[in-house]
């Protein structure tokens, strides 16, 4: 187990800077999620931590040592690839024992360890099979078992759930988190799926175009996005962003409700909401429409998320008065997109 520090790390392929001056500190035993759209540099960053990619500038520290010039095998890290990268010519048993064999561990010990790891992930019965005889979920378990079998310093995962179907993904997520809590290994997890990030991470680092935009707990990142990118990336549908005067106004769809649902004493902002489209998702309803400001003539498209339980009649083509609590409003700078402190 070790802490990981990423100091001013950059990576360029030719003229393209794919990772741009990234600083992240990951405590021992922490679960950090690198979140961002595809091509944001998160996988490259993970590969640099793993030692698969050279570092153009900056330093990566694992367990108090600079690892810039050490090969992957010297870093004692484990990694699960998106494709799981199981060795196709080896049985599940041989796959899991491979890292141990490279450490020249004796046979008895290897067998014991492999059985322990297999037991942990419920794959004892699969040990003699070849990877091609396994289902997607089983492959993922084998890959994780292989990664864990030698108690690595750091555990790296590159979108390990993206090849599973939706149902399996939810249970795998749960399992993964419980497991990480149990063994307490420092974990860095790459994903583009914000639901995974919210559910799994102690901390989330949101990345875009090679830069880290915000690092924080899932709650912080969701409630107090550091800039408009994070605001528009987190949440589904994301935060509504509308330009007003000299700043950008942001509010979450679930905080944008008919005026009679709020207590006017708390301090609210009201908006005239012309409804253009209505979607009933079962537990929630999404209301799409435009709002108009007194100050400008242009209309802004926004979304509201209402709990179906609230039982409010909304029809498209009509205008309603909606409101947001002042405390739920966020302000961003028009030019930089950075968060401004509330007025």
């Amino acid at each position: 187990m070790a802490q990981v520090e990423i100091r001013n790390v950059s990576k360029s392929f030719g003229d393209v800077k794919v990772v741009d001056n990234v600083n992240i500190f990951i405590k021992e035993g922490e679960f950090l999620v690198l979140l961002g759209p595809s091509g944001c540099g998160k996988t490259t960053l993970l590969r640099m931590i793993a030692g698969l990619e050279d570092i153009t500038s900056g330093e990566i520290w694992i367990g108090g040592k600079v690892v810039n010039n050490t090969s992957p095998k010297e870093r004692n890290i484990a990694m699960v690839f998106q494709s799981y990268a199981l060795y196709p010519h080896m049985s599940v048993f041989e796959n899991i024992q491979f890292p141990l064999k490279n450490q020249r561990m004796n046979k008895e010990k290897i067998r014991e360890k492999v059985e322990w790891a297999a037991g942990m992930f419920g794959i004892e019965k699969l040990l003699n099979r070849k990877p091609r005889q396994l289902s997607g979920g089983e492959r993922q378990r084998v890959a994780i078992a292989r990664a864990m079998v030698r108690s690595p310093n750091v555990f790296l995962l590159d979108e390990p759930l993206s090849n599973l179907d939706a149902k399996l993904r939810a249970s795998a997520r749960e399992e993964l988190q419980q497991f990480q809590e149990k063994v307490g290994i420092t974990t860095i997890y790459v994903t583009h799926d914000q639901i995974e990030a919210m559910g799994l991470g102690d901390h989330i680092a949101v990345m875009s175009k090679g830069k880290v935009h915000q690092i924080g707990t899932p709650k912080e990142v969701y409630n107090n996005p550091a800039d408009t990118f994070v605001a528009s990336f987190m949440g589904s549908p994301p935060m509504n962003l509308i330009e007003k005067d000299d700043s950008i106004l942001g509010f979450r769809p679930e905080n944008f409700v008919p005026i009679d649902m709020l207590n006017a004493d708390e301090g609210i902002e009201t908006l005239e909401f012309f409804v253009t489209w209505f979607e009933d998702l079962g537990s929630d309803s999404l209301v799409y429409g435009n709002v108009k400001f007194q100050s400008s003539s242009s209309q802004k498209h926004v979304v509201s998320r209402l709990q179906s339980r609230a039982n409010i009649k909304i029809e498209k083509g009509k205008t309603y008065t909606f409101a947001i609590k002042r405390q739920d409003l966020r302000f961003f700078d028009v030019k930089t997109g950075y968060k401004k402190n509330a007025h």
Partner: protein
Amino acid sequence: MGKLKKIYSKSFLGLSAFFFILFSTFPFYWMLIATFKRDHDLFSPNNNPFLFNEPATIKHLSELLFNTLFLKYMFNTFWVGTVVVVITLIIAVPAAYCLSRWSGKTGENLGIGIFLTYLVPPTLLFIPLSRIISFFGLHESLGALILIYPTFTIPFCTWLLMGFFKSIPKDIEEQAMIDGCSRLGAMIKIIFPLSISGILTVIVFTFTLTMHEFIYALSFISVSAHKTISVGVPTELVRGDVFRWGPLMAGALIPSIPVAILYTFFLDRFISGFTMGAVK
């Protein structure tokens, strides 16, 4: 009506298949019957040449095996083939692996460049190569062929292997590096076992290509005892005092069949290399 049409088209297909097979195999059938025909039968212009008019004989066969250098040619061919296979593997496997792992188009382009040297014909190179061979003092020795044959086996096999290595995901060797192998170790422990079929293909092709080769062998070897099959049979057995057709045909047939069987077995891979990925 429809049924009749089907029968027609079927018999048309069958008939044309028959003619094509006849065209392809007739020379080999011809070798086969000449091998076992008595000389008197072979050399009577009025006998039906397609049949045995007299009892069959193995005289030609025994003459080929015991009164000619045929077995020596076989041995020479085998020896040259084996050494060339080893050289080709030692040079082409690392090169192909390396090219397949280069990022971007560089590897691909260099690979195509290497492949195209396979098309530079022996007829263009044999004159200058004769000088290079005497420079190395290899004139009239099998060493000359061992030195030259990799010029066409390396380009072709490098290209073929590149395709094989490319089909192995990069993830797998990176995983191996994370699991405690060095880059070289990952290649030896993981990549090579996974490309055994590719390496086997290369061995077979190198071997058949060297057995097929005629021009260099003709140009650089004129001592009978050093000839290979492809040159020894047509030059030594034809250009003697008499045309010894019986042993000659036996000598042409015997090596052809095993080579053809091996080659056919691996042909699909050869074709997909040839068409440069246009056909999977």
